[in-house]
């Protein structure tokens, strides 16, 4: 399928799907970068955001309310999850953190399966974003173009919060030395709870924004979790700009490789990750001190 028009189409598609991957990965990297917890429940939280939005959509018929509900539900979930479980694991070994988040992820998936079954659900895009747009080089779903904008805007907001506000400053200071931040009289526990809530919200927001692109199933987070890990490893574990760069690179690798041989798309993604780990273990935008 090598042709100029297909290359342009795939490049654009890589950009759009990469932005979505960046958005999904941002929550993972915010939580890891700040709290040092590799949250294996991230895929399940992404799925949960989709289902929470679905319930709101079914009740109201409004996509906007669905997005707000999906995001808010995950903020609340994230805060409660952190308060009840995660904070007891900050000082425990990383393998304990992996096990507990993996376990919570499984419980979430099975709870949703118990409540909704395994058949998929669809959330339609808002009517103004439905249909197909004719770009000069290809037809492209209008909603995916909108998602590109939504993802860019959401990432910009997150960037602003993390790099241009007092909260962001505390968070970034907490990343470097949480003990010191605590000694300065800042309630680190509360900040960490908030950070986990923001990370969860990013997952939930991505889940419901992504819902019209896919169809919701309880297992949808599993494959996404793998891809988001690749994204954060490429971009730099714990680096927010790294997640954006990693997402875009991953999107382009998946799209461009598929032009040559679609069976190798995912293989190339992992090959790229391996290459980054070999040449720059901390990731493209990661700092060596952050492991």
């Amino acid at each position, binding site marked *: *399928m090598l*042709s100029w*028009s*297909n290359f342009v*189409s*795939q490049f654009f*598609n*890589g950009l*759009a*799907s990469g932005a979505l991957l960046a958005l999904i990965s941002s929550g993972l990297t915010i939580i890891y970068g700040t709290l040092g917890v590799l949250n294996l429940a991230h895929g399940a939280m992404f799925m949960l955001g989709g289902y929470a939005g679905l319930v709101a959509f079914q009740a109201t018929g409004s996509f906007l309310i669905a997005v707000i509900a999906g995001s808010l539900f995950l903020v609340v979930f994230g805060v409660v999850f952190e308060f009840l479980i995660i904070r007891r694991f900050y000082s425990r070994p990383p393998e304990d953190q992996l096990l507990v988040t993996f376990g919570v992820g499984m419980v979430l*998936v099975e709870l949703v*399966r118990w409540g909704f*079954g*395994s*058949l*998929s659900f*669809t959330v339609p895009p808002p009517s103004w974003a439905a249909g*197909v747009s004719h770009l000069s080089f*290809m*037809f*492209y*779903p209008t*909603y*995916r173009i909108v998602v590109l904008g939504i993802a860019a805007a959401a990432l910009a907001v997150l960037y602003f919060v993390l790099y241009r506000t007092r909260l962001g400053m505390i968070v970034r200071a907490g990343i470097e030395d949480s003990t010191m931040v605590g000694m300065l009289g800042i309630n680190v526990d509360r900040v960490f709870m908030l950070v986990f809530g923001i990370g969860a919200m990013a997952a939930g927001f991505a889940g419901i924004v992504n819902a019209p*692109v*896919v*169809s919701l*199933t*309880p*297992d*949808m987070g*599993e*494959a*996404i979790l793998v*891809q988001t890990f690749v994204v954060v490893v490429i971009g730099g574990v714990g680096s927010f700009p790294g997640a954006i760069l990693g997402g875009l690179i991953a999107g382009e690798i*998946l*799209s461009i490789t*598929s*032009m040559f*041989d*679609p*069976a190798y*798309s*995912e293989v190339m993604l992992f090959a790229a990750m391996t290459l980054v780990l070999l040449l720059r273990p901390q990731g493209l935008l990661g700092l060596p001190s952050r492991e």
Partner: protein
Amino acid sequence: MSVQKFVRPSRRTLLQAGGALAAAAAMPRLAFADDQPPIGTWPAGSQGDAITIGITVPRTGTYAAQGEDELKGYQLAVDHLNGGHELMRAISPKTKKGVLGKEVKYVVADSAAKPNQAVQEQGKFISDNKVVLMTGSTSSAVAVALNHFAQREHVLYVTGISGSNDTTGKDCVRYGFRQNFYGQTAAAALGPVLIKVFGKNRKAAYMTPDYTYGHTVTKAMNDYLTSHGGWTMVTNQVSPLGAPDYSNYVTNIGNSDAEFLINVNWGHDAVLSTQQAKQFGLLNKMKLIIPYQIPFLAKELGADTTQGVYAATDFWWTLEDRYPLAKLFVDTFQAKYGYRPEWGAENAYMSFALWADGVERAGTFYPPAVIKALEAGHHNDSVVGDVYFRAADHQLVRPVIIVRGKAPKDMKNPEDFWEVLEVVPGAGLMQAPDAFGCKLGDYT
């Protein structure tokens, strides 16, 4: 002289010999089996009042919905075996209650459509429960793995859903049997319909899941359409099982000059890939074809997407108008589970019924005797009419059903998604038994 003696027996001798022969014929396999050393889980698994079947179906992952439907078919079959239901007795006439008078129990585990997980779980069932039969798969990768596992362990296996040519082809085994249709028969049944309706020399894009089922079904379809109709494969988009996004694959197809999208993906992968093909406007400019129909696909996509789509399938519930047993099956299934069965449930039910019939005819659970009973070419009535196992590759000879998606306005009830166009007899669709390299292996 002595020869003359033997060719002139007295009438009394003849009667005695005839009586002895008749008695031997009445239970020859029982006597044969009782003399055998233990094999697999025999006789340990069938010495009590009950026997156990090990079921591994995907209850998580991309094939989870189909796995649950399959499981319900197994459960209904077990109920019907233990209760001696008339449907079960119509398929397996010697069945009274249970199998050989023993209550049937089952144990279930999630395979997640992963071969290693399925083999592990069945291994536990063999050691802990002494299962006399293994079943379940909604992925041919699992079916092929369990085939070889069954042969190694000498425990019978009837496949669940498995569409790969390999299952009763190069990966066939003496201990494995398959009820359902597969790539070759799907292509041979659907191909002529497509060429008749759409003509020759057309261009098709394929979407193929990257494992044995996908590759063999795509090859079978493409081989048939190319050799009989001059169709061309303009692109083949191979994707991993459970891909989270198909946008890059459908972009490639959108940039091809395909007139048909032949989607071989299965389970939720089929739902997602079709949905995204529609989002990208592909279904406005090319016609969708589903060579290997997917349970619940139409329900999940909606009839506005599946209307006019041609597909091959194992069973569709409106066959109740043609076959009395189909009606009995649909009615009893619906009464128990609240919806009309999809073909995964039908395949599951039929697989158990045919196995039970084989055991009843063998008169023993001794696996080689059961295998020989199933290989005997015995014809059974079924929910799709007369069927029998082919001895040389253990594939059931059964019709393939060609369906076309109904428009929403033509649906008579919320589950009336497909119109049955043809019931194509199976024997003429099948390849020669050795064409795909089947070598069954030993009985013991």
